[in-house]
């Protein structure tokens, strides 16, 4: 019961924080808007899925006209405050998509980071450790540099690349149905290095698209759209709740795999599920926002110092704090006179902070 209460209090507190950060962020920009207006406009933009519209659209496949089913989600908007039209447009169509996507990405990266740190029992672990980010980068850079050879769309290619890389690392590290985490870690490092070479090669031959590719690699939210939010958010939420269902298993795993088995955890199966879910949640984030470093490392780490190592509370608080953190840092990134990729800001803030923790020996407590 006490735990339920603690989770509740922290969740509500961080949700409020996230809302405050969101509204503040939406008020900042070339056109100055006052906070109450922004708050109303933000609430107006909150949509709840209310139903599905299924239709048939004629599409052309190999110059043949084929009817294909389409699915549209209908949204209900519970709030309708009176807000000036320009302000509403700026908030809803310009600023909020980027903020919302930033929130979703931060949420995803921080939850995956929390899970990976527990999984590897290592504070330096983050989702990219099993090659997810590198795989996504290969997919994305290949698509940017050679759009004709890879005509799948940037996000799809990045998402697929991420999952393929994670699976390859897993397959390399697995022998006789067992996946020792140490092997997984080393296989991840090796595959990352290899993919790094592939990315460098692709960049060398990227020609005119080099700048776009580099920008993608640095992690960015500048071209966010509601469409991306609509695709990413459900994937992230579903996998998040999947991970949350394994929070207690993850706790048991933190005391050692053999020990976890003696309290009834099917260790290898649980590890597979945790790896798969955190790879998916990371891939979904990386596919839309590129490689944004340190969110998955720092946020869970700080939350662990605040709420303790129990994943039942660590996971939701990390996720919400990750969302707020990325929205805030992206605000810094975009309000810079020369807009920066958000990845630069998170790394520039995150690395010194991490070093501070390292010097304070906090990291060794993990």
């Amino acid at each position, binding site marked *: 019961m006490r735990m339920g209460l603690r*989770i509740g209090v922290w969740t509500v507190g961080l949700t409020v924080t996230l809302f405050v950060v969101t509204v503040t962020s939406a008020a900042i920009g070339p056109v100055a808007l006052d906070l109450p207006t922004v708050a109303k406009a933000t609430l107006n933009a909150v949509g709840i899925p209310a139903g599905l519209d299924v239709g048939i659209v004629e599409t052309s496949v190999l110059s043949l006209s084929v009817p294909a089913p389409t699915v549209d989600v209908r949204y209900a908007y519970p709030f309708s405050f009176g807000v000036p039209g320009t302000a509403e447009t700026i908030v809803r169509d310009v600023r909020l998509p980027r903020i919302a996507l930033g929130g979703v990405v931060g949420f995803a990266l921080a939850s995956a980071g929390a899970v990976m740190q527990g999984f590897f*029992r290592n504070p330096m672990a983050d989702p990219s450790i099993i090659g997810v980010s590198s795989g996504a980068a290969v997919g994305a850079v290949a698509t940017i540099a050679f759009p004709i050879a890879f005509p799948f769309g940037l996000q799809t290619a990045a998402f697929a690349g991420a999952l393929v890389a994670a699976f390859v690392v897993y397959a390399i590290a697995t022998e006789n149905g067992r996946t020792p985490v140490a092997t997984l870690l080393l296989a991840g490092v090796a595959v990352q290095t290899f993919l790094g070479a592939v990315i460098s090669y692709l960049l060398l031959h990227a020609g005119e698209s080099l700048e776009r590719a580099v920008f993608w690699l640095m992690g960015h939210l500048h071209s966010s759209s509601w469409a991306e939010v609509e695709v990413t958010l459900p994937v992230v939420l579903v996998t998040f709740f999947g991970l949350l269902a394994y*929070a*207690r298993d993850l706790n048991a795993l933190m005391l050692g795999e*053999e020990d976890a088995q003696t*309290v*009834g955890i099917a260790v290898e199966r649980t590890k597979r599920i945790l790896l798969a879910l955190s790879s998916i949640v990371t891939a979904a984030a990386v596919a839309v926002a590129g490689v944004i470093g340190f969110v998955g490392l720092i946020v869970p780490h700080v939350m662990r110092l605040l709420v303790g190592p129990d994943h*039942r509370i660590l996971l939701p608080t990390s996720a919400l704090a990750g969302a707020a953190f990325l929205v805030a840092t992206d605000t810094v990134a975009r309000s810079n006179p020369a807009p920066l990729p958000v990845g630069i800001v998170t790394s520039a803030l995150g690395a010194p902070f991490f070093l501070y923790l390292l010097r304070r020996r906090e990291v060794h407590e993990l």
Partner: protein
Amino acid sequence: MNHHTIELDDVSVSLGEVDALRDVSLSVDAGEFLGLVGPNGAGKTTLLRTINGVITPDSGAVRLDGTAVTELGPRGVSRHVATVPQDTSVSFAFSVEDVVRMGRTPYRARTDLTGDEADREAIERALERTEMADLRDRPITAVSGGERQRAFVARALAQDTPALVLDEPTASLDINHQVGVLELVGELIADGRGAVAAIHDLDLAARYCDRLALLADGELQAVGDPETVLSDEHLRPAFDTRTAVTPDAVTGTPSVTAIAEPRRDRNAHVHVLGSGATAARALTKLWQAGFEVTAGPMPSGDTALSVAAELDIEAITAPPLSGPGESALREAQEHCRTAAVTVLADPEVGPDGTVLELAESSGRPILVETRPLEARNHGGQDVRERYRDLESRALTASIHGLVPAIAETIRPQAVPADD
């Protein structure tokens, strides 16, 4: 049909190239505490890991209440047997209660994050039982080794299983916590659980276990009550050393002492008079130094006598109150006369002065005293005078200086003078 709580049937395990266990069959019943003893690398931990399902045997079967571990799966096994791991060091700051709660893992539903009433009751009972309730909110990283061990016993209790597996539950604990943890396990067994523990300390194992199983090189050497299993006959091949097993002065249970084998043969006869701890130590020292040792008369039931028996030292026994009989005395006299040296180790001197008489008949007495004569003199003034005479004639040595002193005494005889 009644099943054993834990049953191993011809279990063999190989780890890589090494046969970690060969054809081990054992069983543990409800209310029984089985101790696994044996040298490092004997396969104790491997055996425990076959019971809790961490290792699947290459051949043979492990059954819990009649059901094979392989059929139960991790969750099923964890409802039958709870494990207290050897290494309880945790690097994450879970609270004591969090750790205990992990024992409820086998019973919870996946979607249930906070646990139900049954969970809370089991956790509460386990905390109370192990006297950890006051420490429930303390981080497991911030409690003492003994408390951490108790927290893991509490976790095993919360797991609510008929069987317990404990891997070296007392290793790295202070003696007070060693006893505390084993007393607790004893209580849990009295409740009707069955337990197996790998215990490095043979004396503790003998003291707390109903039966012992001695493992060496992956094979079962002996199974039975501690008195049977802990004998030099079984222990010497297993540990590759000579051992002496004597009843512990306090608990009366077998106490094992490893003794280094004599490194050389000294070819000289030493006779030991006296009794008690000092005589026992003298016997061991002399035996280890390679002398041909005889002893006695010593009152039956004396510590020194049991040491003599363990080391196959010929010892003359006297009834405790009436003193040695005629033939025993003659035999002792013969030993004192023929021995190169007679050692008097804290001799008790009675009114008849038997010991003094024997000492007088020996050529070279060496006196080892740790207690004052007053504590050993039961014969009054007269005897004291004779003892003083002996003292002036004898060489005095400490226990540690005994062997050099004897060597010194014997040398002039062995090496003829130059002139």
